[in-house]
């Protein structure tokens, strides 16, 4: 995973609560064998006017001009501003895969569904929790005539660039460490290669039939 240090990007305001994983990436796309390539179908049912199926040429589909992702103001947005209980529904990892594949790096919301929150970190997405009033204020700014650009400083745990000065946020120290160092779970575990090898060596003696 890439290291996450400071990050500056345009904010896309998705003004709905309880956005579920099926809305983030509809289930007909789950039969894919890849974890990349979900970006063009992120929010598919909201984003396009026709019904999406895997294998379609998305560039030729009619887009829904009303949907915020299609607003030219938010082109290239990489920070998603959302409402409460974002990511509820199934446990599949396709939802964070789709968001990351589209280009989002940060989500800001008052709350998240638990599994989605965990899965986000596993996939290098930073989900930030802010209180509802702060989120409201950010929505006001992001929905203004000019797009809002924010800088997320993970090390300082600060969001800068909004009207009201820097906004602090909380994050579990271990998760912060992993993102800063670019460690995914596998990377972390591989820091303990010697322990795994030592364990295996011992087990090969104790229970050799397991290593046929």
């Amino acid at each position, binding site marked *: 995973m890439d290291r996450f240090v400071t990050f500056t990007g345009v904010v896309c305001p998705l003004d709905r609560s309880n956005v579920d994983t099926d809305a983030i990436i509809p289930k007909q796309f789950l*039969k894919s*064998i*890849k*974890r990349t390539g979900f970006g063009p179908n992120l929010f598919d049912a909201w984003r396009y006017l026709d019904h999406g199926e895997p294998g379609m040429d998305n560039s030729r589909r009619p887009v829904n001009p009303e949907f915020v992702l299609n607003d030219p103001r938010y082109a290239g947005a990489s920070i998603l501003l959302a409402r409460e209980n974002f990511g509820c529904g199934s446990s599949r990892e396709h939802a964070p895969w789709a968001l990351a594949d589209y280009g989002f790096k940060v989500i800001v919301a008052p709350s998240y569904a638990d599994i989605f929150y965990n899965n986000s970190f596993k996939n290098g997405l930073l989900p930030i929790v802010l209180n509802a009033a702060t989120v409201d204020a950010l929505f006001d700014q992001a929905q203004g005539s000019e797009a809002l650009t924010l800088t997320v400083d993970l090390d300082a745990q600060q969001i800068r660039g909004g009207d009201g000065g820097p906004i602090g946020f909380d994050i579990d120290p271990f998760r912060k460490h992993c993102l800063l160092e670019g460690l995914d779970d*596998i990377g972390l*575990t*591989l820091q303990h290669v010697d322990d*795994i090898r030592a364990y295996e060596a011992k087990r090969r003696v104790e*229970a050799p039939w*397991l290593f046929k």
Partner: protein
Amino acid sequence: MKAKTLYDKLWDAHVVREEADGTTLLYIDRHLVHEVTSPQAFEGLRLAGRPLWRRGANLATADHNVPTTDRSRGIADPVSKVQVDTLDQNCAEFDIVEFGMNDPRQGIVHVVGPEQGATLPGMTVVCGDSHTSTHGAVGALAHGIGTSEVEHVLATQCLIQKKSKAMLVVVDGTVGPGVTAKDIVLAIIGRIGTAGGTGYAIEFSGEAIRDLSIEGRMTVCNMAIEAGARAGFVAVDAKTIDYVRGRPFAPGPEHWDRAVAHWQTLHSDDGAEFDRVVVIPAAEIRPQVTWGTSPEMVVAVDGAVPDPAAESDPVKADGMRRALDYMGLHAGTPITEIRPDKVFIGSCTNSRIEDLRAAAAVAKGRKVAAGIRQALVVPGSGPVKAQAEREGLDRIFIDAGFEWREPGCSMCLAMNADRLEAGERCASTSNRNFEGRQGQGGRTHLVSPAMAAAAAVTGHFVDVRDL
């Protein structure tokens, strides 16, 4: 020394390292792989340029998407075909042993593992599938994992885990004739609920569990996940050791005695403490039939569809009403008046040889009732199918009007062509009766193989003991 539970013993033997907060790096002895949850994990390895940690720990088979009819022409559905082909390619690239679609050993991953001796007592076993709990029947610690974890195991042979709490479910005394492992586990879920096991690893014990064959214990452990527990297991006894002996992946003569000596320690010590103990008198368990859209919505076959109005918890009552609506049922209807349109005998819960024997014993000399549109028998694996054919079970089924199919998941989750149409009602030996599980709008009643066969030949649910 402190008395240990079986769970403690299995867990402790696999700790690679433990952090102060209990986060543990747990070593995984066996990783089973199938086509649905593995492609992104292999892709992740490739993207990160990471090698496989230990190829011999992995065993793969295609099951969810494979057709159960003639396979000589391949898979018709292009999306299913891609998943199965991708598994073949990944296994070839990473040099993993795979039982491909046309291998005689192919089958449902949870049938194949124990059958091959690839899951052994004392192992940690994982697979990207929630019904991995099945393998606990041989005294293994086995549970399902997500795709990121599949990749994690491929790359490190470990999982990052926190230990669950320990629950002991004691099925006390003996069950009556005609009452099977499926009825036992449905009764357990009816008693503790689908969230009753959340946060726990369940050890199943008691005379009724010891009386079960290893296959029967697999049926019970298979549905531990439907009770909310990630893992379910049974202590090793002489039956376990007899079951394992001589299987292709089992220890050979050079290690056999040592392995057995170790396996014989795999039981909870006297005086071991559990966080929760549930005791169910076996004699009270009758053949079970689910009536709703959750496995806990279950009654005995001589009962009736329950009345939401009699439920004091308003949330539960509401759930019951929605379930009855979806299932097209009315409160008070006797279970024996419910008439399925289809019958499915199969799935990782009930597709082993003794399941097919039990169903065939009921089907023998009878005919599938006129009201049944389709009655499928789908063996769990190639070896199960071959064994059944040696015993002539296929003839019994075919003569009675059942279809005899090739092994796979089939109508358990309707990812291949076998499915229910909207509104169709099915007597099914699988494990999930969720909305749409067997096809959009399909209505599932979970039962044992004998009860499914009995419903097929009478056209309605019936107490198999009355037949």
